[in-house]
């Protein structure tokens, strides 16, 4: 209760939370919203483009009008509002799915390292350190390029991002597990002969919730950045599925002719990331008073 009240008193957190909630809501209701606007993300509108000038939207502000709330995409005339809203689904969907996988992997490995024997700990910790140190982007690009093109890209993206980003969670989990292990009630359970699995489930996991969730809150925007980056490099989701990173990468060739086309996906990405970071920051301040200072 106190926690909640303190959170609600934090203005930065509140702003972030509201913005984040709006984005999640937008992503969830994307088809509804586009229907409401009377548009869809794939229909071409050739009549709104100036073909002789490379297919740049006719009219000021990238073809912005009452029908096309954010204008249309150069080269295709597809409705930008619809594309951006559907792009939110990919961005958030991949980030959340990857997060769930990361937590499963990270907590599993972290607890195993913390509770396992000396050798298990040594091997798992070394693996964690390595994964943490290695620049994941390099491997992610290589991985995404060799899998057959027909595999579902969003799922693949989530898996690859998770596989390369579980180590932080594992490290924190291990540290917390080690400290929990020495607590009286856990020691008591172990002495009384409870199986390691039972100890892990009943005694350790509840204690992990706060620190792991605090950390996870920060991993989420990281995942979004990864997805956007991979899509930007062209190894992310495939067209015609819209994604912010992919839109940005096409937009880079248009920034003089149609600046709005850059600002819409770019601005949204920035605002959404900022919202989630503010949320993470607020949660940390409340749940993890040892580090009252901003982030780590």
């Amino acid at each position, binding site marked *: 209760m106190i926690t909640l009240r303190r959170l609600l008193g934090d203005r930065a957190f509140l702003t972030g939370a509201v913005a984040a909630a709006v984005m999640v809501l937008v992503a969830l209701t994307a088809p509804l919203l586009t229907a409401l606007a009377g548009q869809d993300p794939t229909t071409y509108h050739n009549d709104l483009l100036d073909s002789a000038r490379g297919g740049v939207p006719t009219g000021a502000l990238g073809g912005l009008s009452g029908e096309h709330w954010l204008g249309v995409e150069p080269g295709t005339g597809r409705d930008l509002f619809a594309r951006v809203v559907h792009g939110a689904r990919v961005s958030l969907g991949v980030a959340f799915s990857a997060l769930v996988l990361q937590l499963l992997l990270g907590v599993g490995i972290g607890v195993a390292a913390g509770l396992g024997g000396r050798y298990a700990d040594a091997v798992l910790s070394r693996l964690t350190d*390595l994964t943490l*140190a*290695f*620049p994941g*982007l*390099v*491997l992610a*690009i*290589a*991985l995404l*390029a*060799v899998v*057959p093109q027909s595999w579902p890209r969003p799922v693949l993206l989530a898996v690859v991002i998770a596989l390369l980003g579980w180590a932080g969670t594992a490290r924190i989990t291990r540290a917390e597990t080690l400290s929990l292990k020495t607590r009286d009630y856990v020691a008591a359970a172990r002495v009384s002969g409870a199986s390691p699995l039972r100890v892990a489930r009943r005694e350790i996991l509840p204690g992990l919730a706060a620190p792991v969730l605090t950390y996870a809150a*920060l991993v989420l*925007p*990281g995942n979004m*950045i990864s997805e*956007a*980056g991979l899509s*930007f*490099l062209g*190894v992310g989701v495939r067209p015609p599925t819209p994604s912010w990173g992919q839109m*940005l990468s096409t937009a*880079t060739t248009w*920034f*003089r002719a149609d*600046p709005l086309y*850059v600002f819409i996906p*770019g601005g949204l*990405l*920035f605002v959404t*990331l*900022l919202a*989630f*970071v*503010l949320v993470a*920051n607020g949660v940390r301040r409340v749940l993890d008073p040892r580090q009252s*200072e*901003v*982030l*780590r």
Partner: protein
Amino acid sequence: MIGLLLRRVAGAVLVLLALSAIVYALFYLAPRDPAVLTCGKGCTPERLADVRAAMGLDESALTQYWHFLEGLVTGRDYPAGPDVRHCPAPCLGYSFETDQPVTALLADRLPVSASLALGAETLSVAVGIGAGSLAGLRRFRFLDPLVNGLVLAGYAVPVFLVGLFLLLLFCVRLQWLPFPQYVAFTTDPLQWAQNLILPWIALAVILSATYARLTRAGLEQALGEDYVRTARAYGFPERRILRSRALRGALVPLVTLTAMDLASLMASAVLTETMFGLPGVGQLLVGAVNQIDLPVVVGVILLTGFLVVVANAVADLLYAAVDPRVQLT
């Protein structure tokens, strides 16, 4: 001490071996035949067999891997048509796509990546430590929001967004700078810096945030430590305490991080390189991945691993050198 060093080296070699094996297996299993790609259009089955033999692809996966390891130590010859292509040790493989040894390709790109990484790291450390230590001192508490903002930005902005913004502002709107086009330092140092300044800034926006935060936290903690209090009790001037004691303590975690960041930047600033069209190692990787140029992909990943492992070791040494509590023995 020597035992420890040997153990570290052995461990590093083991890690690199494991990495190479995994990457090799990964691409060996990939459902694309590099020989077909190299052979090109109008390829007859006989010619394909020749190419396969020349690339060493007619052998089993294990044998191929073994030859790869041999080549690392002794160099390697590839038969190709009438002449033989020699790949001197340490041979990371031969790119038939570009008709060059992988090591030559990497050596070609490394100066670009190193220029990018070194400049960005220098700038980030300077800005990070500057802002962080100012904010860490009570007198400059009003700078806190600035550092907080910097930190938030560091987390919330992808590097390609910063890059895009910088290009838009300085090259398109204000036209203060030309579109970046890599010029070697040895050709013209001024142009080298002029063309790299935007990529440096883009990376520094992201990196300096962490450094500023770490410096501030470290400084705050160090000011409360015993050795600082002792120094104060002895009557050392405050400025000297700050410089020689407190800041030194605060720098410890920063050193490790800097070394690691530098290593990973060398090989993985893919997005920055793409954004600014810099022909570095990251671009090499993206190109190789698109052409399924297996030896180059493996080479880049191994180079990255190598740099990370070396940086790890260097960081440990620096750590000992800079921390007043750790003594080199």
